[in-house]
């Protein structure tokens, strides 16, 4: 049933399938035989499956992809990710090698094949979903490629017919030193090399892991994975584009549409989303430009850093300004007050320059100006930790991002000390956290330390549930929780600032 939708994708393109592929494309509604464990997912499924299989398989794959995404968010290393994913893959999407001689090989591969194509349909609607899907499918493919049986992997690759030119002996000798330096492989170690147009291995080029000569990249054998993966991504991206264009026709099948819609929705927000309820905090009167200095003691380190930088320089570069503006919007600072805040903070700037170059951007962030969609959506959502942890590192002169990630350990400790964190053991543990790239763990640890007393109280008297004290994944959650904890029972007993040692 999926097949007939696909066959209508683009007649011209289908005609381009070469003879080899055409012979495979012939049989309709027939079981396919899966020779290899790995799959480039070139050919769409051709056999019937039940509606239940359709949904279950898709949900299982979705589970796998979501867990993969979570791994990348937690900055797990490839090894940690592989280890973590093993049980999940075994449970939801086992995929065994030929050598396992399992009875269910074909069934497993069929499920892998079909579920991939179902999710393709579900996630091709927007550019954003396509990009995420492609990224996660690539991660999954890489993971499986790595642990594939060596011999079977070789067979799979040779079956792909990728055009790789081997580097001859004389050229290997001529460039021996450079080849070794570029790849990090010791000179003299036996090694085969391929020569390809550099555009085919952008990843390796970006990381300077290959030698480049006049537009050709010299790729060592062991980086073959990179080539195979890049090719996988490329083909998937192209296919997703085509699916997107064919998508409207899918509405014809009204049994599938709701399932697909549901799938894509459940994929849309695994990230800690900012909720507008974060902006309304019991007992906190609307913040003003004047109150930010006082409130800033409740800010997470990323925002405190921006605040201090702003105070020190009377300026912030644009990414920092954007990050901070959205955060301030998120704590409930009104547009007018926000404009006030920036106007006063940029002490050295003329009014004219401010009006001309800065005000519009603040208004835009609030959705006060811009196109319909921006206004409707009230501008942009405050950044989550995930966003801050995955964006490119700041350049010189910039101070946005998450300091746990962007600062050296020494500078990070100095910054923490400036915010009043002096506990030696804590600082030591924070160092360990960040060296393992567990940035959000470090941040939560600092939070718990700074609010030790209050957390104990709300736990003891049961006034806060466990969810209320869940790991913080959003700077605005950090603020809200900090403020509330530091103003416990303010309405009745004035606990505010009572005895806490959150030094300023």
């Amino acid at each position, binding site marked *: 049933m999926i097949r007939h939708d696909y066959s209508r994708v683009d007649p011209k393109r289908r005609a381009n399938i070469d003879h080899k592929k055409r012979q495979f494309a012939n049989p309709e509604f027939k079981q396919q035989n899966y020779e290899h464990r790995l799959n480039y997912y070139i050919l769409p499924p051709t056999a019937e499956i039940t509606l239940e299989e359709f949904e279950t398989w898709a949900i299982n794959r979705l589970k796998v992809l979501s867990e993969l995404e979570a791994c990348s*968010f937690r900055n797990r290393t490839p090894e940690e990710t592989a280890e973590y994913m093993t049980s999940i893959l075994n449970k939801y999407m086992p995929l065994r090698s030929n050598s396992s001689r399992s009875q269910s090989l074909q069934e497993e591969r069929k499920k892998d094949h079909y579920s991939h194509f179902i999710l393709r349909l579900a996630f091709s609607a927007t550019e954003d979903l396509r990009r995420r899907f492609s990224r996660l499918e690539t991660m999954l493919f890489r993971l499986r490629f790595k642990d594939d049986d060596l011999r079977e992997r070789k067979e799979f690759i040779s079956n792909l017919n990728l055009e790789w030119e081997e580097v001859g002996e004389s050229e290997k000798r001529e460039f021996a030193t450079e080849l070794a330096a570029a790849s990090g492989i010791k000179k003299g170690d036996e090694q085969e090399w391929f020569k390809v147009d550099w555009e085919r291995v952008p990843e390796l080029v970006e990381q300077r892991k290959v030698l480049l000569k006049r537009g050709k990249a010299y790729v060592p054998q062991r980086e073959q994975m990179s080539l195979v993966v890049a090719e996988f991504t490329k083909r998937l991206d192209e296919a997703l584009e085509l699916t997107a264009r064919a998508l409207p026709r899918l509405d014809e099948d009204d049994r599938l549409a709701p399932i697909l819609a549901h799938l894509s929705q459940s994929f849309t927000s695994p990230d800690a989303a900012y909720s507008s309820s974060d902006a309304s905090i019991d007992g906190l009167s609307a913040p003003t430009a004047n109150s930010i200095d006082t409130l800033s003691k409740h800010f997470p380190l990323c925002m405190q850093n921006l605040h201090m930088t702003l105070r020190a320089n009377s300026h912030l570069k644009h990414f920092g300004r954007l990050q901070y503006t959205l955060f301030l919007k998120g704590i409930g600072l009104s547009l007018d007050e926000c404009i006030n805040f920036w106007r006063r903070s940029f002490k050295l700037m003329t009014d004219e320059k401010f009006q001309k170059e800065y005000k519009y951007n603040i208004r835009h962030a609030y959705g006060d100006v811009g196109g*319909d969609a921006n206004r409707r959506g009230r501008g942009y959502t405050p950044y989550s930790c995930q966003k801050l942890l995955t964006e490119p590192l700041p350049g010189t002169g910039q101070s946005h991002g998450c300091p746990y990630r962007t600062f050296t350990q020494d500078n990070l400790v100095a910054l923490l000390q400036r915010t009043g964190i002096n506990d030696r053991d804590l600082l030591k543990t924070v160092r360990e956290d960040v060296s393992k790239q567990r940035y959000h763990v470090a941040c939560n640890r600092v939070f718990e330390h700074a609010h030790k007393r209050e957390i104990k109280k709300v736990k003891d008297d049961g006034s806060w549930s466990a969810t209320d004290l869940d790991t913080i994944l959003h700077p605005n959650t950090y603020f809200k929780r900090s403020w509330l904890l530091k103003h416990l029972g303010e309405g009745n007993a004035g606990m505010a600032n009572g005895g806490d040692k959150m030094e300023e």
Partner: protein
Amino acid sequence: MPHSVSPEPTPHEDSPMPQADAVPIKTEPDTQTPDIDMSDAPIPTNAESTKVNLDDLFDDDSDPEFGSSIPQVKSEEPSQRSPSPIKISSKSSFSDPEIMRTFYQRLFPFRYLFQWLNHSLVPANDFAHREFAFTLPNDAYLRYQSFATADLLRKQCIQLLPSRFEIGPVYSANPRDRKSLRKASAFRPLTKELVFDIDMTDYDDIRTCCTGASICHRCWAFITMAIKVVDVALREDFGFKHIMWVYSGRRGAHAWVCDKRARDMDDSKRRAVAGYLELLKGGDQSGKKVNVRRPLHPHLDRSLNILKDHFQTTILAEQDPWAEEKAAHLLQLLPDHTLRAALQKKWDSSPSRPSPAKWADIDALAKSGSISKSAKDLLEAKQDIVLEYTYPRLDSEVSKKLNHLLKSPFVVHPGTGRVCVPIDPRKVEEFDPLSVPTVTQLLTEIDEFEWDDSDKKIADWEKTSLKPFVEFFRGFVAGLLKDEKSGVKREREESGEAMEF
């Protein structure tokens, strides 16, 4: 340099539009929340890319001195070859409408600009579907302008007198028609030169001779070094041939890589090139900015060889980066505790030692035994320091996106009045930004030109000091067109074969 990204950098929605068909400022923001998109993924290649990216809206790196307001534009156009002298007085400002009008009428090399962007002498879509963006005298910013011919572009310039204009990608349809297209996806950027932007602001933490917008010969050497390193990498490593370097008019330089192979690159490939060339990592608080594995990648090894000599002259002798207490940063970059302590002691007693002496102290003290790590470690640390102070600092965001706009060559920088002239990379050492002609100077040169009979046919630019630059540009364009022609021929042959199949 203020780099304009596809979205409007400085929107002025209330500015009156000087002309009926001028496109109003369009700000359709991205409808998705930034959270969904966690990667620094490329701007989508469909029409979404015409929407404003909020990050870009916050781009404030605009030129501090830019933007003097000048009187309203007169609508009537004076005769093209005004026989009367141009009347330059010492009071004339660079962006005076009469000056700009005369500049566009008589000096701007529209013909070669057209050929450059069109890749052929016959008008084609490479030019017609190319986006131009104008910054008008009242600071309004007009996106999605396009022109079928060089002459139409020229007419528009003479009419609107933009203080500058920028060049964007070639789109899949005429940018002026983008709203009438039935499907939004029918309008997307297809090709554009691979561009680079090197700006002195990125050197502010190591530049000691000047601050802000000003430059001198000493700090221009940073740009010279950068051009040398990037140019050779683009040619030898990536195999690009048609690379045009352009002075940005004040304190930086742009590169336009015009090879077809470069123009066709999607964002992931642009990102790859930018990443390959990028070395310094981390913000001001991240400490050591150079962290590279050994042995050095051949590109870095070659760069280091180019930069070594500059380090001695440009950095140590001329910038004196570690004067007095600034030596602390140097100490921070040395990994050896023993050596650091010995140096600290020595410099505490004579803080005014000039940087070359301090640099020499490192080896001297190491030789005398104040060292706990290996000589190799020290050598590598010193190499890293050389790279931190000399390696090009590119504004890589500009290079990563197909739909980024960049200021056109040969426009006038509104702050300095200097023309954005090409720089010959073979003679990059000789290029002197402070002697680049200003628009007023050029117009005076036309006035003062001595006529004689043999000079009857010459163009106005030939009468001025713009001449060598226009000639260089003409030569560059001719070389590009020649390669383009043979490329087209080859493509035809190939597709011919395919059709037989």
